[in-house]
């Protein structure tokens, strides 16, 4: 799993690649927490290269969404595909997040 963040205007785009599972979900959860605590109010998660997602990984995204919404911010998902997309759908998480097609998620109005 790799976690790469890139400031893009008022947003921060974060590309997560590889396998996000129970063994690395805590790392992602803590990094997202730190980014929000630093004052970021708009996060775009680029999941176009994510190949595996389990409940711990999805849980990290949900906690981050709850945190950023609590301070008036927003988090969006781009590039969701394949099995990770199915995991979102099975948990109704597609109805929690704003899901954007493609990977140019930083172009958020």
């Amino acid at each position, binding site marked *: 799993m790799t976690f790469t963040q890139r400031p893009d205007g008022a947003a921060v785009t974060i590309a997560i690649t590889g396998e996000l599972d129970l063994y690395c979900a805590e790392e992602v959860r803590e990094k997202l927490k730190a980014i929000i605590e630093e004052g970021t109010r708009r996060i775009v998660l680029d999941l176009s290269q994510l190949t595996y997602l389990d409940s711990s990984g999805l849980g990290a995204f949900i906690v981050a969404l709850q945190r950023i919404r609590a301070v008036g911010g927003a988090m969006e998902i781009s590039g969701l595909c394949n*099995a990770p997309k199915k995991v979102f759908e099975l948990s109704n998480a597609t109805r929690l997040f704003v899901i954007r097609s493609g990977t140019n998620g930083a172009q958020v109005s």
Partner: protein
Amino acid sequence: MNAVTAEPSVKVIKRLVVDEHNDIFDAADMTYVSYPSLLSDVRAYAYEIVRHAPEAFREEGLLEQQISEIIKNGVKHGNHCDPAKNVHIWYSFHKRAKIIVEDEGEGFTAIEEWNDYFRKRQEALFSEDFDTFLALAAYRGAKSDANDGGNSLIAALEYWNGGIIYSARKNKVGVVRWYTNGSVYV
């Protein structure tokens, strides 16, 4: 901003069911394996089982992920990651995926609490009460910790379309997934 926009096609609230004598626990003709409760090896256990599944059942890793979740629940919440305790697994991939996982713990005693939580969550989803739905997006029980995603059983209820049944002691769960969408029978 409200992310809940589309109407769900079917408004059915499913439940976790306890049924000791359900046919799902008939393990005849199923393959049995047993593993120590090592959280570090949970995905390896699931991978080993899925190796025996037809390619059409694997769905780009989704089958492995869903099996991994129920093994993880047994290892972590059932056996508390005690390597002296085993998880006992029966599996069969004849015409459908069928898995039984039994741990050596005290059982999932909070099933009714979970069903109550899930009902409230789904009611919020169906009524487009976004704030409540977000607050209830993940289950947080008395035994949950920060590393629990709180959504594995929610997905399991959808994924295991042939049922998800607990034994009377609630330390054994049987699940079935049929593959009928593409007439995939093996």
